[in-house]
């Protein structure tokens, strides 16, 4: 972060202090401005200067959606059984362990129940820091259990996606989660319970091609990358440059795939309003 040192480092500043100060700053990827991390956090992880939406952890997401940031977490101890005993350059088990240390989570999704503007709801939020937010058996089972709970308690369900897609290290097992979750959402249809999908940056692959596109409402955050195939794969296949804004939330809205793009600041109140329409009383 040389841009910062040049401007702010007092001459002869002690090394330790400089490092500490540096940790308190971040740079906006969109407007390139230097920002106090605290300011960004206080602004729901959006750039106070240009509104750019930073990626948000699953915990922070649930805290900003539930009243008082309070919720009861479900199935927190559910973990992958590594059914294929998968190994590439590393063992999958090691990748899982490392992801657990980084995130404090057993897998790439937290589900919980709390209140949104005084009304009970189930929310699932994906954690991109956990192996790219990839969907394997645990994500599939947790969402399916959330669907079971929604039906049992007549509760609405919201899933905030942030994922590179199906998890390769669980092979066809990850693929089958798409079928399992989507069939669960068909049961929600029959129970006439609301399901709102919130698509955040990035939402691609098997997650988009299953529950992320199946909301009664599909809502995205501004600028989010959303697609089936990743842009790099498409570019390689068609050997053309992709059009400006391709696969961004605004592109999807223009092509009829989204109900609305809602800035993070308005997301909670938007969801509450939508739920009052879909499930009055």
């Amino acid at each position, binding site marked *: 972060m040389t841009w910062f040192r040049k401007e702010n480092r007092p001459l002869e500043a002690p090394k330790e202090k400089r490092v500490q100060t540096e940790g308190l700053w971040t740079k906006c990827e969109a407007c390139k401005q230097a920002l106090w991390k605290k300011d960004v956090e206080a602004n729901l992880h959006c750039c106070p200067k240009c509104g750019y939406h930073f990626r948000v952890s699953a915990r922070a997401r649930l805290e900003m959606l539930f009243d008082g940031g309070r919720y009861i977490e479900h199935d927190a101890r559910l973990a992958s059984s590594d059914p294929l005993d998968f190994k590439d350059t590393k063992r999958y088990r090691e990748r899982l362990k490392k992801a657990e240390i980084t995130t404090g989570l057993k897998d790439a999704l937290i589900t919980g129940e709390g209140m949104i503007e005084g009304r009970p709801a189930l929310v699932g939020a994906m954690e991109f820091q956990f192996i790219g937010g990839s969907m394997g058996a645990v994500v599939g089972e947790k969402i399916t259990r959330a669907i079971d709970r929604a039906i049992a308690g007549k509760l609405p369900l919201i899933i905030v996606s942030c994922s590179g897609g199906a998890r390769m290290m669980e092979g066809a097992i990850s693929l089958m989660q798409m079928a399992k979750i989507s069939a669960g959402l*068909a049961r929600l249809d029959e129970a006439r319970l609301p399901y709102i999908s919130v698509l955040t940056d990035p939402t691609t692959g098997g997650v988009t091609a299953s529950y992320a596109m199946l909301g009664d409402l599909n809502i995205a955050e501004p600028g989010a990358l959303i697609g089936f195939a990743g842009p790099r794969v498409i570019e390689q*296949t068609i050997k053309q440059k992709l059009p400006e804004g391709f696969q961004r939330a605004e592109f999807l809205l223009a092509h009829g795939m989204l109900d609305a793009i809602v800035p993070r600041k308005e997301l909670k109140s938007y969801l509450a309003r939508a739920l009052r329409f879909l499930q009055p009383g």
Partner: protein
Amino acid sequence: MATPARQLAAQQELQRQIQELEQVGGSAAAHEEAQRLRVQLEALEQSSGAPSSEAGQDAWQRVLLARHPQRPYTLDYISLLFTDFIELHGDRRFGDDPALVCGLASFEGRRVALVGHQKGRDTKQKLHRNFGMPNPEGYRKALRVMQLAAKFGMPIVTLVDTPGAYPGIGAEERGQAEAIAYNLKEIPKLRVPIVVVVHGEGGSGGALAIAIGDKVLMLENAVYSVISPESCSSILWRDWDHKQEAARALGLTAERLHALGLVDEVVPEPHEGAHANHAEMASILRPILARSLIELEALPADELLRRRQERLRKLATFVMES
């Protein structure tokens, strides 16, 4: 064991197709297909006379067999197993997708609806069929015909053989992800028996979008995977040279998927593989398909749907409380 003459003919055909595909230029899907054919050709040259199919053989060999250029394709199965086929075109939304074939036919004294991916045999057909990679309109057509089948009480047979859903600009604009997702949610609601036959390549979501059913059959040398071994190698190993290891790690063979409970029954192939004898392959598949339909037809619709939901609810639950 393939005869030397037939093997030579296969090699020459592959070489001819690679040349043709390279002349097509422009289309990068064609370029990619040429790459795939080169891998096939290499494998054929190396095997030169060695047995091409043995029990317990390497996963990568299965990938090559599943993509074998002489393997029966969906329309071959339709003409070998079914009679009175009427093809139904179009999704009533945007267009007709030749990569996904739909229609009505007769099978062993009953009417059925058919839905299947279709690859092309020669270069012209390959381009016409987009190498068996559907666009959203293909998946929407498939659901339309499946819903038609449900309305008129016809069981559904799906025939799965695709490298994957097409990754293109138009496909994204028209909602490739939405088309696949919508099928995954709507197919479980159909009140008629559905039998899935994975007979070639089961390429990820592009395969799954027509592979939801009450019974999933998979041919011995077919493969079914969340990602191609080539792409898996490039992402996890960061090069293209670990496709064989990736194929093994992904567990994409019929035996493996059956052992994991993701596939209900493995359909044996003729000794040398399905490509060696289309008629024999069809004659092995016919009674298994007939039996599967008879079993499912015996169930009242409510029971059929209850079992289907239960099956899907329990599908691929490999988790533990830690």
